[in-house]
Each structure stands twice: as structure tokens, then as C-alpha cells.
């Protein structure tokens, strides 16, 4: 009734309410809703209009359901001052009045509606009563209908049974007719060649005939049928053996024969024998392609041919076999697998022969495509014949070929490196013939480096084809892991760098230590090349490789640092060897010059000997050569006017100190003592010590070797007075020109001092030349 009471308030709208204030309508509605909600247990607080926090059960809430006037009054009286009480009283009176007028208005408004509602309800009561009567009548009619229907079906029951029986008889008769007609039909089918139809008929009849063979008439039919069937089988076999027809037809024949109940074992063998014949023909044609003559079709064509011919055939055979002889169980499958294994093996042998012919060629893309086809083709039979291991074998072949390719590329890289070296040798030899100034070593180096790098890149690119996404075998574990890490990175790149280092080192170990075998410039160039590899190229190449072949394999790989160390060691050895060779060249010159001269009867020196000029020239040439490839390096800080200064030291103080006592025969011990004391304070000179990678160090090495040789040779000779003076002049000349090449010029004069001192000791009449004269002679030429 609350809804009904609210209904007019909300639904009537402004038109119906003559004097209801518009503003109060929503509030009233909300109140009604609130009561409804209260009734249904919904929280009043959820409605929007309520002040938050008011308790619906609060007995002091005027609008609440649990309003208790006593409590409310009590509260008011207790809490509020008089003024507020008065206010609330007036307010309440006003509200009560408003409510009264509202109630009156509502009653007036809705009076008509109450009346019409009462009328409507009365009318509905009458209508329902009429409807009840009609329903009763409907029920009785339905009962009558059911009764009739039952009676009809009872009447028809009898007939229905007879019809069913008749239908059964009819079917039986048709079957019989089929049986009686069977021989003639079979004959006809056989004549027409519709073997399938014939076999189907036979299949249908067989069981029945089997069952009723004790009846003579059926026996006759059965006999007839058997004769015809035998003929049929014979014809089928005939067709099957002829073998001319394709594999599908054969499969059909076999299927029919099987349906005729021929022994499956035998058929299976025969089937395989036929298939073998066909596949062997394919293989032979493939072999003919191989031939003794150079392979006519390229490898791609060959694999295509093999793929479509042999593998396709094998696929057909396998699928037909599996369909036909599925009932054979594991024994049959084993037979097929053995068959496929054998023929597959022969096919693989052929393919491998063909691929072996391809080893020499440089075209990787064709090979990879061929391998891809080959591999892709074999996946189908591989799936069919998992037991035969064809796919595995194919993968193995591909892997082997890939390995061989890697080997081939490594060989190629080595050959390229050797080729580069030959080019360099020629380039080094050629300009000398043409009489030109030193060959552009830096240019040659750049050429060699770039040529090797491009070769490496080309090889990488070629090998990379094997791992391309679209290639069917690239996702095999071998190609994802081992191929990348062990094959390409270790085998190809690291292998090449190692072999490069070895080749370079072999120049150091070559028996031709006398210098003729390897041009020194080549040693220098190789040393620089190795050093460049150590500093940058190796890590670059390896990074490149790692990027191209996302190496996923966890197997250990050679770290960059090891390779770099190897390259550095090689570079060091080469450079040391270079120093030795060049030092030897100059030493030989010096040695000859000392050994072949008769020092006892030489004339007073007027000139520096030509060989010394030659030594200086050669050293300068070496300096230029090394300067092309190596940086300057550090030398000990010296004043710019080094030559003069050292000369004065050399000639005055030291010379006096050393030679003066030797004039007086009484003091030979002093000479030794002095020289020994002096040596005590100078560091031991390691003549053939390893060199640093810079020009100064290289030249220091060469000059050390040369001067030490000079020293040793001088000690083996005996000098006359002028001989000693000549040595003095020569040494001063060397002093003038060699100091600039070495790291520590102290070293040069130490050695040269030693030479002069040794010559003085080997001289029965040691009268040194006046230093100023020496100076003049040297400056003159």
C-alpha cells in the first residue's frame, strides 16, 4: 500500500496536483523510498539526501521508523536552550501544519482514482469466473480425444506387424536374388575390368555363403564364386606383376587382393620388390647423371631430380604400404624400415658423391639451396618412416657437408693469406728492380689487412648461408650450436688467425737465417699486421662473428685475450727476428770490413771507410722503413746538440782516462782496472734482447747487434798504429750518425768506446789520433 500511496504522488505529475507545491514532491518521494528501503532492510544512509552519519534506528530521528517521541522530547529538553526549544517548537508546529494540508490535498486528488480502481477489480472478478467454466469444458474434450486415439492404434496393430514381416521377406528375397545373380555379376565385372566392384560384391557375399554352404544351392553358388574369384585374383596379380602401371594402381591392386583374402605377408614382399624395382631405376638414372664425365647438371638440379624422383617415389611407397599393411603390425613396419634404410643409404651415397664433386667450387649459395632442398625433401619420408632414420641420416650428411665447407673456407682463407704474402713479396721485389725509392709499406700493409678482412667477411657470409632462417636445417641443434661456436668461430675464424700466426712465425724459424729467404720488409710488415690484429682486428672479427652467428652454444670458446696474446707474441717474434736479420746484415758488413783488412800495414787514415758510410746509410734506410710502420717510441731525454756534447766527453775526458795510461808500459793494470770500474757502473748490455713495438727500440736492437759484432771482430785482430787510428775515425763517424737512432745514446758510445779500447789493447804501438783531427776527417766525409 505504500507503493500505492506513493504512486499518485510521483506518477500524477504536475497536471493532476492542483495545489501541491512543486518543491516538496521530491522530498516526499524520497521519504517514501526511504520507508520502502527500510522495509527491505536497505541502509537508509545509502540514499543521497540523508545527512551522512545519521542512524536509521535513532529514536530521536523525526523521520526514522523507530522514532520515540518521549526520547526525542527528552533529548531536546536536555540539550537545547530555551530559545532553540521555542524555535523547534514553532518549526514543528509549522511542519505539522504543512503535513496536515498535504494529507488533505492527497485525499482530494486521488478520490476519483480510488473509485475507478474498485470498479475495475469488481469487473475482473466476473471475467475470471467465466474463464473457469471454459477451462473445464476443454479438459473433458481432451479426455475424449485421447480415448479415440487409443482405440485406433489398437485396431491398426495387427496390420502393422504383417507389413513388417512382409518387408523382411522382401529384403531376404533381394539378398537371395543377389546371391543367385552373384556369379554372373562377378563374371561381368571381371570382364569389364571393374575389379573394385567385383571385390566388393565378393566381400559382401562371402560371409553368407560361408554360413550356408551346407545347402546344396548355396554350395553351387559358392563354388562358382570361388572360381570366379580365383580368376579375379589371378588377373589382379597379373596386373600387379606387370608393374607397368604406376604406384597408385599397384596400391589399388594390392588393396583388392588383400580384400580377397590373399596372404598379406607374401603380398607385402611382392609389393616391396616392385617398389624396389622402380626406385632402383630412379637411382640408376641418378647415377647416370653423376657419370664419369664432369657433372652436367648443377647440384641443385641433381638434388631436385633425386628429390622428386627417388624421394617422392619412396614417399608414395611408404604411405601406400602403411595404408595397406597397417594390419601387419611391427613386423611389417620393420620390413618397410629396412627397405627404406637400404635404398635410402644408396641414395645418400649417390648424393654424397655428387656433393663431393661440389667441394671444390666456391659457390656456397647454390650448395646451400641444394642441401636445403635435399633436407626438406627427406623430411616427408622421415616423418613417415621414423624407424628408418632417413631424416637423421640426411641431417648428418648436411652437417658433414657443412663441416667440409668450413674446412674448405679455412683452406681458402689460408690460401688467400699466402697469396697476399706472395703479392707483398712481389711488390717488395718489384720497385727495387725499377730502381724506385722504398715501397709504400704502409700502403701494402693496408692492402694486405683489407684483403684478408674482406676474405674473412666473404667466408663468413658464405658460411652464414647455412644458418639462414629460411633454410630448413638451420634450426637443427648442430647448426644452432656447434656449427656456430665450434665450427665457424673456433674452426674457421680462430683457426685462421692461429694459422696466420703460425705462418708468420714460420718465417722466424726458417732455416734460411742468413737472411736470404724472407725479405726483412715482409717480416716487418707481418709483425705490424699481427700487432694490428692484436690491438683491434681480432676483437672486431670475433665480435662480427658472434653477432652474425648468435652463438648459443655453451661450449668453451677461445677468448679474445688468448688470441690477442698469441698475435702479440707472433708480432714480437717477427719484430725480434727482423732486428736479428737486419742486425746480421750490418754485422756481416762490419765483420767483413774488419776481417779482410790488413790492419798492421794500413796507411794513416785520411777518410772514413766507405763501409761505415754504408752502415750509416743502411741504418737510415732501415729507420725509414720501420718508421713507415711503427711509431717513434720513447728515447731518453737528451739535449738537441747531442753529438757535439758526447763527442767532447768521449774524446777528452774518457779518452784521456783510458788511453793515457797505455802509453806508459808500467800501467797495463790500470787500464784494466779503469775499464772494469767503468763497467761496474754501466749496465750489462743484452745484445739480442726482445724489442718493443716502436722504431727506436727496433733500431736500438739493430745497432746493438752491429756494434757488438764490430767489437768482437776488432778483438780478434791486431792493429798497427794507423789501424787503431782508422778504427778511431770510424767509431767517431758512427758515433756522429748513429746516436740519433737509439733510445739511449749512452749505449752507442759505450760500445764504440769499447771498440776503440779493444783496438788499442790489440795494438802494439797505441798512439791515438788527435781528437780534433778525427773530428775534421769525420766532418769532411
Amino acid at each position: 500500500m505504500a507503493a500505492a500511496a506513493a504512486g499518485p504522488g510521483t506518477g500524477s505529475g504536475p497536471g493532476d496536483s492542483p495545489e501541491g507545491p512543486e518543491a516538496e514532491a521530491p522530498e516526499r518521494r524520497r521519504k517514501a523510498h526511504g520507508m520502502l528501503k527500510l522495509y527491505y532492510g536497505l541502509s537508509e544512509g545509502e540514499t543521497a539526501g540523508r545527512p551522512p552519519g545519521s542512524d536509521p534506528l535513532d529514536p530521536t530521528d523525526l523521520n526514522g521508523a523507530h522514532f520515540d517521541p518521549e526520547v526525542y522530547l527528552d533529548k531536546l529538553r536536555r540539550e537545547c536552550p530555551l530559545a532553540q526549544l521555542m524555535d523547534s517548537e514553532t518549526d514543528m508546529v509549522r511542519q505539522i501544519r504543512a503535513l496536515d494540508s498535504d494529507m488533505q490535498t492527497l485525499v482530494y486528488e486521488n478520490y476519483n482514482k480510488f473509485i475507478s480502481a474498485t470498479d475495475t477489480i469488481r469487473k475482473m472478478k466476473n471475467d475470471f469466473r467465466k474463464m473457469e467454466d471454459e477451462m473445464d469444458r476443454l479438459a473433458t474434450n481432451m479426455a475424449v480425444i485421447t480415448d479415440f486415439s487409443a482405440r485406433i492404434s489398437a485396431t491398426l496393430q495387427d496390420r502393422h506387424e504383417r507389413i513388417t514381416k512382409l518387408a523382411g521377406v522382401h529384403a531376404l528375397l533381394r539378398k537371395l536374388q543377389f546371391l543367385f545373380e552373384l556369379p554372373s555379376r562377378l563374371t561381368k565385372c571381371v570382364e569389364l575390368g571393374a575389379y573394385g566392384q567385383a571385390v566388393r560384391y565378393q566381400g559382401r557375399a562371402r560371409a553368407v555363403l560361408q554360413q550356408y554352404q551346407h545347402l546344396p544351392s548355396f554350395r553351387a553358388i559358392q563354388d562358382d564364386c570361388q572360381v570366379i574369384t580365383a580368376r579375379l585374383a589371378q588377373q589382379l596379380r597379373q596386373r600387379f606383376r606387370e608393374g607397368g602401371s604406376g604406384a597408385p594402381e599397384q596400391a589399388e591392386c594390392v588393396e583388392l587382393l588383400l580384400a580377397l583374402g590373399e596372404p598379406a605377408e607374401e603380398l607385402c614382399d611382392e609389393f616391396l620388390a616392385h617398389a624396389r624395382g622402380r626406385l632402383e631405376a630412379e637411382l640408376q638414372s641418378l647415377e647416370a647423371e653423376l657419370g664419369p664425365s664432369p657433372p652436367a647438371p648443377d647440384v641443385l638440379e641433381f638434388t631436385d631430380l633425386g628429390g622428386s624422383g627417388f624421394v617422392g617415389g619412396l614417399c608414395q611407397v611408404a604411405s601406400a604400404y602403411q595404408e595397406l599393411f597397417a594390419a601387419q603390425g611391427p613386423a611389417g613396419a620393420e620390413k618397410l624400415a629396412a627397405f627404406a634404410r637400404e635404398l635410402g643409404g644408396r641414395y645418400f651415397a649417390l648424393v654424397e658423391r655428387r656433393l663431393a664433386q661440389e667441394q671444390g667450387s666456391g659457390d656456397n649459395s647454390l650448395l646451400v639451396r641444394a642441401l636445403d632442398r635435399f633436407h626438406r625433401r627427406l623430411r616427408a619420408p622421415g616423418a613417415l618412416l621414423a624407424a628408418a632414420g632417413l631424416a637423421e641420416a640426411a641431417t648428418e650428411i648436411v652437417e658433414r657437408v657443412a663441416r667440409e665447407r668450413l674446412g674448405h673456407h679455412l683452406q681458402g682463407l689460408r690460401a688467400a693469406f699466402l697469396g697476399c704474402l706472395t703479392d707483398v713479396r712481389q711488390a717488395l721485389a718489384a720497385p727495387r728492380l725499377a730502381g724506385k725509392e722504398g715501397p709504400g709499406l704502409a700502403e701494402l700493409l693496408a692492402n694486405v689487412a683489407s684483403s684478408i678482412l674482406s676474405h674473412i667477411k666473404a667466408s663468413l657470409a658464405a658460411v652464414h648461408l647455412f644458418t639462414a632462417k629460411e633454410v630448413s636445417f638451420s634450426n637443427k641443434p648442430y647448426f644452432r650450436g656447434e656449427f656456430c661456436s665450434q665450427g665457424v668461430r673456433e674452426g674457421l675464424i680462430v683457426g685462421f688467425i692461429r694459422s696466420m700466426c703460425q705462418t708468420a712465425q714460420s718465417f722466424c724459424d726458417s732455416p734460411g737465417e742468413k737472411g736470404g729467404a724472407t725479405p726483412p720488409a715482409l717480416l716487418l710488415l707481418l709483425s705490424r699486421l699481427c700487432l694490428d690484429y692484436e690491438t683491434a682486428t681480432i676483437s672486431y672479427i670475433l665480435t662480427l662473428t658472434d653477432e652474425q652467428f648468435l652463438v648459443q652454444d655453451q661450449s668453451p670458446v677461445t677468448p679474445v685475450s688468448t688470441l690477442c696474446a698469441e698475435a702479440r707474441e707472433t708480432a714480437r717474434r717477427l719484430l725480434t727476428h727482423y732486428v736479428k736479420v737486419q742486425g746480421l746484415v750490418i754485422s756481416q758488413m762490419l765483420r767483413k770490413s774488419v776481417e779482410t783488412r790488413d790492419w798492421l800495414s794500413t796507411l794513416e787514415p785520411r777518410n772514413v771507410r766507405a763501409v761505415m758510410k754504408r752502415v750509416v746509410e743502411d741504418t737510415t734506410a732501415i729507420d725509414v722503413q720501420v718508421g713507415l710502420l711503427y711509431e717513434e717510441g720513447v728515447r731518453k731525454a737528451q739535449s738537441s746538440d747531442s753529438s757535439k756534447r758526447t763527442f767532447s766527453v768521449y774524446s777528452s775526458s774518457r779518452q784521456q782516462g783510458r788511453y793515457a795510461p797505455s802509453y806508459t808500459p808500467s800501467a797495463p793494470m790500470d787500464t784494466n782496472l779503469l775499464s772494469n770500474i767503468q763497467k761496474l757502473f754501466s749496465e750489462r748490455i743484452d745484445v739480442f734482447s726482445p724489442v718493443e713495438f716502436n722504431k727506436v727500440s727496433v733500431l736500438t736492437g739493430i745497432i746493438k747487434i752491429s756494434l757488438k759484432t764490430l767489437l768482437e771482430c776488432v778483438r780478434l785482430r791486431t792493429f798497427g798504429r794507423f789501424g787503431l787510428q782508422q778504427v778511431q775515425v770510424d767509431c767517431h763517424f758512427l758515433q756522429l750518425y748513429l746516436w740519433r737512432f737509439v733510445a739511449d745514446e749512452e749505449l752507442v758510445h759505450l760500445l764504440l768506446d769499447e771498440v776503440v779500447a779493444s783496438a788499442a789493447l790489440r795494438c802494439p804501438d797505441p798512439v791515438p789520433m788527435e781528437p780534433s783531427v778525427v773530428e775534421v776527417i769525420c766532418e769532411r766525409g
Partner: protein
Amino acid sequence: MPKELEPGGHESPDDSTSPAHTLELLCHLDNTAHGSMACVAWEPAGDGKKVISLADSHILLWDLQESSSQAVLASSASLEGKGQLKFTSGRWSPHHTGTQVATANDTTIRGWDTRSMSQIYCIENAHGQLVRDLDFNPNKQYYLASCGDDCKVKFWDTRNVAEPVKTLEQHSHWVWNVRYNHSHDQLVLTGSSDSRVILSNMVSISSEPFGHLVDDDDLSDQEERRPEGKSQEPPQDSVIATYEEHEDSVYAVDWSSADPWLFASLSYDGRLVINRVPRALKYHILL
């Protein structure tokens, strides 16, 4: 060694003013026809009547008569080849009853048969540079050590001269001398112009078998009898010691002929250093 026996007059400088003995000229090897002599070597065994001398490109075999006062040129041979070939050193093999002599010229080592004065073997390019000295293993036939300007010491088996048996590269300048110890041939002494003397232990190619088996009697060492059954770790060639007492190039090293553990080295500055084989090693070899 024959050095002490060598009479003055060949090469030894004549400044012998030492108080002990004055040297007396016994005989004169006439070399006027053959150029300057590089080396003289006495027959190691026998009655000491044969002397080999090397002069320029000739190898001369002298026979000193009974009194050792007269030398007769018994036979000679000479090197033939391009350029000026000069012998640098020579050595008489202690084996084969003194019929073999090895000589060095430039980078080549040659072996000679003194009976026929014909070449029996030749090691071309034995060293990268000049060969300075040779020495035969006193206990092991066919084994020859050589050293040269390429700073290397090489050991050869003269039956197969294609490859050296062993190569040492410890010196940093020319190696002037190489000497086997007379009784314990694993001890090899080398002197070099890098002013170092190096004593090496070449166990792997010595005549003393590893672990000393029972064959004590076939070797010629007299005073040092090695006890048998010595347990040894696998032998390793090694440098026993590097002697750096010299301040200048060392031009001669040799073992004492009296005490097998004593050796001397002589350097340019006139310093003669006498050293002993380290005691630990001595006992290691002996025991």
C-alpha cells in the same frame, strides 16, 4: 787436455815471463805454405804423436817423430768451394780410436776420417751464423755439441745430421765455447760474449741412463762410481747455474782435468774465474 802439453811456438804469445818454467821450443809446425793456423788439436788417445792443425782452408795431420822434436806433415786435405773458406775450429773425437776429427768453417760442421783424410759427414747450416766451437761427448759416441754466433748451442748425432738432437738458446750473444764434462757428460759448460757462463744439465741426452741401471762397467769414469738403483724423477734438461762474474766477453771455458766438478772461465778483461758444480747437484749425480 793437450793445452798444457802444447809447446810454445804455435800460437801462444811469447810474453812468458812467468818465474816457474821457461818454455822450450820442441818442434815447429811449418805452416808457411798454408796460411795462418786457426786451431791445433792433439790426438786424444794413443801415444800423442799425432797433431791436427787447421790453417785457412787446409786440414793438416802432423806426425811428431819419436822425440817429438820434428814434425812431418803426414797428410792433408783442403776445403773446396766457392769463396774463401776458412776453418774456425776443430776437435778430435775421443772415440773410434782417434780416427775422426770434426771441423767447423763458417756455418758448416764437417767430419773427417784421419786415415784417408776424406770427409765423412757434413752438417750444412749447422748454425745460422758462424760456428765457434765444437766438442765431442766423451762418453757417448757420435754425439757432438756445437755453438756459434746465432747464440745457440746445438747437440748433434753425427749419424743423422738432418736435425739437431737438442738446441739451447740461453745466451744473448755469440757462444764462444762449449765443453762437455769429461766424466759426467750431462754437464755442459758454455761461455759467451754476453759475459755469461752457463752450466746446463743435459740429462736427456747424456750417456748416464735414467735411474742408473746396472751397466757401470762399460763407462770410462774412474773415480766416480755411481751407486745403482737411484730413484729419479723423469729427467729434465735444465740450466744449473748462470755465472755472471765476468764483466766482459767470456772467450774460454774448460773443465778441470783433475777434478770433474771444477771449471774455469776466462774473459776479455783478463779475469779467470774458477767455479765448482753446485754441491747439491754433485750429490744428486753421485748418489
